[in-house]
C-alpha cells in the first residue's frame, strides 16, 4: 500500500511548521512507521538543523530533481536515533524555482512505494514554494498560533488547499499559553475552531523545552518531560487513528478558581 503524503503548512512563517514536521516524523518513527520528511523550503532549509542532521547532507532535493545524484535514495539522510526515519533536505543555495511541482510529484511517487509516511515541510508564503510542497500531497496539516495574523493566514491557506483539492485539512494549534487563555488574553481552541472550522488534530502548549530541544537538535517528542513532546505524541496517535482526548486547554484552575471550587463543594 502506498504511503500517506502529508504537507505541513501555515501561510505565515515562524509558527512552528518545521518543529511540527520534526516531531511528528520522529513520533511516527518511534511507532515503527517508515517515515521520510522532505524539506521543501528551498533556500532557507532548517529541518536538517532541527533534526540535528546538518553535518550529514551530501545531496539535496534539487540534486534529486535535476538528477545530479543517481537516485532519490542517495539523497536520503538516515536519522541519528531511528533507523526507519529519513530526511530529504532542501537545497540551501538555490531558490524555489529550482524545482517544479511536476518534479516534486515524481520524487514523492517514488518514495510513496517504500514509506508509510511522507511529510512535506512547506515554506511560508503562498507562491511557488507552496505549490511545490502541496503538489504531491493528498492530506494537509495546517499549523497556527493563537494570534490574529497567524489565524488569518491559516484561513487563506485552507482556501488555497481547497483549490488544490485538499478538502479536509486538519489543524494544529501551536504555542498555546493556558495562563494567558485563563486571563482572557489569548484566543482559546474553541475561538479558533469556530473561526477556521476544520478538524482539530492537536493542541501544543508553549514550551521552553522546544527551544532547548532545537538547540540540541533533538525533537521534543523524544523527551518524556516535555509538555509539547507529549502533545506531539498524542498528535501522532490521532494520525494513526486512535481516539486521544485533547489536553485540557484551560489547564488547572488558578488559586482563585480552586478557592471557588472549594466554596462550591466540588
Amino acid at each position, binding site marked *: 500500500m502506498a504511503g500517506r503524503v502529508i504537507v505541513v503548512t501555515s501561510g505565515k512563517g515562524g509558527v512552528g511548521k518545521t518543529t511540527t514536521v520534526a516531531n511528528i516524523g520522529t513520533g511516527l518513527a518511534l511507532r515503527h512507521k517508515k517515515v521520510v520528511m522532505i524539506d521543501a523550503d528551498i533556500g532557507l532549509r532548517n529541518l536538517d538543523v532541527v533534526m540535528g542532521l546538518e553535518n550529514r547532507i551530501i545531496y539535496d532535493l534539487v540534486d534529486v530533481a535535476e538528477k545530479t545524484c543517481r537516485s532519490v535514495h542517495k539523497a536520503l539522510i538516515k536519522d541519528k536515533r531511528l533507523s526507519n526515519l529519513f530526511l530529504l533536505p532542501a537545497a540551501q543555495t538555490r531558490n524555489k524555482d529550482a524545482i517544479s511541482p511536476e518534479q516534486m510529484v515524481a520524487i514523492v511517487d517514488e518514495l510513496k512505494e517504500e514509506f508509510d509516511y511522507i511529510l512535506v515541510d512547506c515554506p511560508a508564503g503562498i507562491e511557488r514554494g507552496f505549490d511545490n510542497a502541496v503538489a504531491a500531497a493528498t492530506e494537509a496539516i495546517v499549523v497556527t498560533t493563537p494570534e490574529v495574523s497567524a489565524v488569518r493566514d491559516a484561513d487563506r491557506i485552507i482556501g488555497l488547499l481547497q483549490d488544490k483539492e485538499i478538502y479536509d485539512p486538519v489543524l494544529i494549534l501551536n504555542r498555546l499559553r493556558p495562563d494567558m487563555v485563563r486571563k482572557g488574553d489569548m*484566543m482559546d481552541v474553541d475561538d479558533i475552531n469556530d*473561526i477556521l472550522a476544520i478538524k482539530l488534530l492537536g493542541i501544543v502548549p508553549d514550551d521552553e523545552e522546544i527551544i532547548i530541544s532545537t538547540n540540541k537538535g533533538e525533537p521534543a517528542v523524544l523527551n518524556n518531560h516535555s509538555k509539547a513532546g507529549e502533545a506531539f505524541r498524542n498528535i501522532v496517535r490521532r494520525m494513526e487513528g486512535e481516539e486521544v482526548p485533547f489536553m485540557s486547554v484551560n489547564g488547572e484552575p488558578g488559586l482563585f478558581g480552586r478557592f471557588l471550587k472549594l466554596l462550591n463543594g466540588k
Partner: protein
Amino acid sequence: MFRDETPSKNQAVERLRLILVHDRAKVSTGLLEQLRGEIINAISKYVEIEEENIEIELNATESKAELVANIPVVKVRRAVE
C-alpha cells in the same frame, strides 16, 4: 479580574471575524457573484426587479460587517411564481 477593559482575546476574535469576512469574500472567486444570482432568483419569485441596476456590496467597518443590497423593484407579483 480587576481590569475594566474587556479581555484582549475578545478583540482578537472580533477583529479576526471582520478581517475574514473581507478576505473570504475577495479571495473566493465567484462567491459574491453566486450570492447575487441566488438572491435574484429568490426575490424574483415575489417581485419583478431591475436586474441590471442591482447593487450588492459587502461592507466592513470598525465594528461590524454588513451585506448591503440595493434592489430596484418594478412591481410586486400577485402570487408566488
